[in-house]
């Protein structure tokens, strides 16, 4: 029983990441009608906002030792962290909380990246076939990841969670399990609630603001909204920035779980498309539901009991579920008719 609860938690945690990425992808697709293969790269860029921020604040003053040498005979570098020397305890605190603190940096950076991407490249592709949108954004994704590799190398770069959130929470005791049976890392709870907050925020924004209402109207019928004299383009640019920010934040918060490397975006790309399609193209609730569904199913498929019955099922479960859902529900869980079927 405890194991099943743990797998549900794993599934919810995975699902939060899937849902967050798929949410941004659906926003872009639903509003702009663009299939964005660079969305995984935005997730990766978010993660590297944290890496960059961390590198900046743990900046070290390097002096060359006069007496000691390295194993290869050059003077030993003595590194002193600057933040601690300049800001004392606050510096230490900032380094400890660098993942959370980098959110402040990531939001504007990712928003600007999104806007620049939309204005500079994507807007030229609104009326082009999906295949060309895929090709150009895929090219962009490759360029972005190679640029990151030039600066950060190919090796993963560890980003520890803040000390206070690094431990375990004994979740099981809340459900009446004996202590120590169902512990779960605190950071993963943080991630789950963070994702829930972002998803809730995006939905509320679209549901309860005039801006959101116009965007939703635009998603349903772009032409009519344009005829009403509303500058829908500007709003769509904003939505692209928002989607980039959501993807970026998903990446920022994921860094303590998965040490980021330049290839992170490609790893999530296929998966995020499957989530979006299973949820139904253009449906925000569908994307979120599919994210959590696939996360939980993936966790269950990886249980030893299941694997003993169906060897290799954990390797293919995501794809298998996608096939089954698409064959039983032609437009995914909550998709609308006529979208992306041409």
């Amino acid at each position, binding site marked *: 029983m405890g194991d099943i609860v743990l797998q549900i938690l794993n599934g919810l945690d995975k699902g939060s990441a899937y849902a967050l990425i798929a949410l941004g992808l659906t926003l872009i697709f639903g509003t702009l*009608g663009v*299939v964005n293969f660079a969305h995984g790269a935005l997730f990766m860029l978010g993660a590297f906002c944290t890496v960059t921020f961390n590198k900046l604040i743990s900046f070290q003053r390097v002096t060359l030792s006069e007496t000691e040498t390295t194993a290869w005979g050059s003077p030993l570098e003595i590194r002193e962290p600057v933040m601690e020397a300049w800001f004392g305890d606050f510096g230490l605190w900032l380094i400890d909380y660098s993942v959370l603190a980098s959110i402040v940096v990531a939001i504007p950076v990712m928003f600007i990246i999104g806007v620049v991407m939309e204005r500079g*490249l994507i807007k*030229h592709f609104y*009326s*082009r*076939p*999906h*295949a*060309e949108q*895929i*090709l*150009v954004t*895929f*090219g*962009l*994704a*490759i*360029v972005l*990841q*190679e*640029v990151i590799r*030039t600066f950060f190398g190919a090796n993963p770069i560890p980003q520890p969670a803040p000390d206070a959130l690094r431990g375990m929470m004994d979740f099981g005791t809340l459900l009446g399990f004996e202590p120590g049976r169902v512990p779960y890392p605190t950071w993963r709870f943080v991630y789950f609630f963070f994702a829930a907050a972002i998803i809730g925020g995006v939905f509320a924004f679209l549901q309860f603001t005039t801006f959101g209402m116009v965007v939703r109207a635009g998603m349903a019928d772009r032409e009519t909204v344009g005829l009403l004299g509303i500058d829908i383009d500007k709003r769509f640019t904003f939505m692209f920035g928002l989607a980039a920010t959501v993807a970026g934040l998903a990446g920022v918060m994921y860094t303590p779980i998965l040490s980021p490397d330049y290839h992170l975006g*490609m790893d999530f790309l*296929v998966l995020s*498309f*499957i989530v979006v*399609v299973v949820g139904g*193209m253009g449906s925000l609730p569908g994307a979120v539901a599919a994210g959590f569904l696939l996360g939980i199913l993936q966790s269950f498929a990886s249980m030893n009991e299941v694997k003993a019955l169906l*060897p*290799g099922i954990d*390797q*293919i479960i995501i*794809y*298998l579920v*996608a*096939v089954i859902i*698409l*064959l039983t529900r*032609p*437009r*995914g869980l909550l998709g609308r008719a*006529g*979208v*992306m*079927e*041409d």
Partner: protein
Amino acid sequence: MFGSKISDSMLMILFVIVVALVPLLAAPFGAGYPALMQFFAIFGIFAIGFNILFGLTGYLSFGHAAFLGVGSYSAVWMFKLLSMNVLPALFLSVIIAGLFALVIGFVSLRRSGIYFSILTLAFAQMSYKLAYSVLTPITNGETGLQLALDDPRILDGERVAGQLPSPTFFGLDMNATTDVAVLGMDVQLNVGYFFSAAFLVLAFWIAMRIFRSPFGLMLKAVKTNQNRLNYTGVNTRPYTLAAFVISGMYAGLAGGLLACMDPLAGAERMVWTASGEVVLMTILGGAGTLLGPIIGASVIKFAEAKLSKFNENVVEAWFSFLPEGLGDSIAFVVAKFVGDGWHLTLGLVFMLVVTFLPGGLVEGARRIGGYLGRRGHKGDLDKLGSNVQGGKSTTAE
């Protein structure tokens, strides 16, 4: 050459001549070695086949690499069990890939648009993941299926002790190469290349027949407006399924040929990026055109093979004639785009071509041709490239 009116038979003859001259034409670019020329021909076949599905019907399959992989596995198994002769291997590759395509196509074609793409992607990824892990007894997993000294090979007789045999076409060794010096260049005439090239010509000819046939017309109609066809009482499924299976068999042939040239079948052949690669080849060259996919395949394979080999030393040598500081800084910048940075160049090329040449490289050739020919002949390349309405359907949302 693009200026005059070209009939299909003229195009065919030109095509054969160019294909036959590839060893000579590629040599000055350092591309005239067997492995790369074979890739030109084989991935050309793969892309032509993909184009029959995507270029004509508009169905974007994201899992075509699975058929290539299945073809390779079939061929290597044939080499292991039956004989090193390439004919039975290729035969089985095409048949098995065709059957595989029939099953996957039958299921996937129940959906259209991106739902179809994701279904094919899912099937291909499942094949890849299983081939890499659980199916290792059949696929030899990560390492890839290889020949072994103790394989049965029941039809083959004596062999050299302690040495692996190589694939042959009735005694003609696929690896055999004759060097000929032409104008001081080392031109390598390789049996495997000409063997693959013969299949490329055949594949091209069949594709041309399909493009020009009523069947091809029906496929184009599917692309233009499938709903209207359905309303008029035409059941399009058999047509699209036929296109899917033909295209899968092309991929199987390509996979089989890959194994004939180099008897190893790796699971990575089926991974989604490999499927994506053929999409890129087709669009880069020009989807829906006859020649485009072959050009796209050659360009991508050429870039992959050559760009990655320019390490820093090579680049520095290029600019060594410049003054020290200048040469070094240019070399430093250029080195970022070649060698281990070759992916960056590839990504940039995709972006530039799609942005500025929506019809692919064939479109670029047409523009240059149109510019040189001072209009007038504008329609000619449409003939050569066949109906390019291909890349240009708009989305009906």
